[in-house]
């Protein structure tokens, strides 16, 4: 089933072209990775998919309907976003932040139901957050904050999850933990679209990769088909060797030094 259908999407900011004629289709139950250098337009693409930014031209269909025909709240029930920045100035407790994930599902002064609490508890257990529930977000370490923000998006409980470098500040243990949770969501039929800098991680988890450079799609295909050293050279201008792990049959990548 088609989740998203993007046709001739253009986006520019102050005359500068950010996305140039993007055509993409996303299907249900797949893990997508968006890969490209800094400033390639990955974050803008996610914002357009999330309905936060509007494309200057072109159409986006979300579940066969124009994305602009949805209300903000309807979108919030379908799409959750895990942002890159998570600076919070005020002393909210972790529990309060997690609860905000349920806001789109609740009326203004409605308190949470048993069903909401069940969803929240499930995520708390998945991410082992019970020890820091009562702590203030302002007193957590960077990694802890990121996991709380991640949890908040999971609690939003949407069929589509957009992840903007969601594991950038985490050690490998927590990275694998979060990626496994995303992988499980995809297995359960949800769709994950993630921008990623770690290509090995992307090769390990993503079904499908989209390479972007300077607002253009360089290539898009199954991970095992499109991940090769020619693409890496074209997108990042870096020499690399790509081989297949004998046990998992997943692609792995090794980068060569510049100096030779």
């Amino acid at each position, binding site marked *: 089933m088609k989740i998203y259908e993007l046709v001739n999407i253009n986006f520019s900011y102050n005359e500068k072209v950010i996305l140039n004629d993007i055509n993409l289709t996303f299907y249900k139950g797949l893990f997508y990775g968006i890969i490209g250098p800094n400033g390639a337009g990955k974050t803008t693409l996610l914002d357009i998919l999330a309905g936060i930014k509007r494309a200057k031209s072109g159409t986006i269909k979300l579940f066969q309907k124009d994305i602009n025909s949805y209300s903000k709240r309807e979108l919030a029930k379908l799409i959750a976003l895990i942002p890159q920045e998570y600076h919070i*100035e005020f002393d909210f407790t972790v529990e309060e932040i997690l609860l905000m994930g349920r806001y789109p599902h609740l009326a203004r002064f409605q308190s949470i139901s048993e069903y909401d609490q069940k969803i929240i508890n499930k995520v708390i257990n998945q991410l082992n957050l019970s020890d820091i529930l009562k702590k203030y977000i302002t007193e957590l370490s960077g990694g802890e904050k990121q996991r709380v923000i991640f949890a908040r998006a999971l609690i939003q409980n949407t069929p589509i999850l957009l992840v903007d470098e969601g594991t950038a500040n985490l050690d490998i243990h927590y990275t694998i933990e979060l990626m496994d949770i995303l992988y499980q969501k995809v297995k359960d039929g949800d769709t994950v679209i993630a921008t990623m800098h770690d290509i090995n991680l992307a090769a390990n988890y993503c079904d499908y990769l989209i390479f972007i450079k300077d607002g253009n799609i360089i290539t898009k295909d199954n991970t095992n088909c499109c991940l090769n050293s020619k693409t890496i050279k074209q997108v990042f201008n870096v020499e690399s060797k790509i081989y297949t792990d004998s046990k998992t049959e997943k692609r792995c990548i090794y980068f060569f030094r510049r100096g030779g």
Partner: protein
Amino acid sequence: MKEQSFLITLIVFIIILILSIILSASMGYVKIPPEQVFKILLSKLSFDQSLIKGIKPLYSDIVINVRLPRILAACLVGAGLAFSGVSFQGILLNPLAEPYTLGISAGAAFGASIALLFITSHFGIYIVTAFAFLGAIFTIIAVLSLASSVGYISSNNLILAGIIVSSILSAGISLLKYIADERVSVIIFWLLGSFSSETWLEVLMVLIFVTIGFLICLYFSRDLNVICLGERTSASLGINAQQLRMILLVTCSLVTAACVAISGIIGFVGLVVPHLMRLIVGADNRKLMPLSALFGAILLLIADTITRAILPWEVPIGVLTSLIGGPFFCYIFKIKTKHNELVK
């Protein structure tokens, strides 16, 4: 647990506020027993004249026409400044923001100074109030248009625009003071803030602004929570941060303008009350709004009662709040930073 402590605090604050109003109305040059004040108020509220049998008509007159307008003005201004402070801190994503950050106080002061200096008419006090209000409104329009010239408003741009406009207005006020020569005391006295000579008409005006403003802030308080998570996150949670900022900014600017117009510049309440309340119930704006409004009202009423009835001479209330509140805030700040260091 937290839900309960919120409800208990709310009820305790309401009781303290009612007691403070009765006690304050009984204090002053003419001492009136609190139970008689209670009966006078009750008879006014229930239109039951039989309750005030045996109470001197003079007492009833003092309570209703002299003390009550002043008491209610202090409560309303305290409440208005406090919940506006909560909103401004949320909108500007800055815990150090307050209702005067965007220059509303400077605008009101400039307007009032012009009225005090150049306009003498028998409407006297109302002209000053009207000019202060207009000054505040023009200031906020200037700040908003300055800050939004790039197409959207960011909190940093707003704060910067506020500082720029304030400093221009401050220079203007200094010039007016210089021109005023020996009449400068009138301006200074107004700037320091006071609730003496409040009338029912002014109370009614502030009541309207503060009540409507409070309801709007309470209605959007959950959205304000989400804004604190950043613009992208709030958008993905279905909140239009730009639009919400604009609504609350205009609302709270009007509330602050109305408060400043009748009372002069009373500092500290809008900054510190939200902080104190956060220590009790945390950062959830749905709880902060009502508690801050109540505590702001209690605080200003007590401060005004001290200067009106307890001190041998009347100290300007703006000075009093800053003198008592400033050091207290230092103390709180010290404890908090220590606590934060320990946690890290």
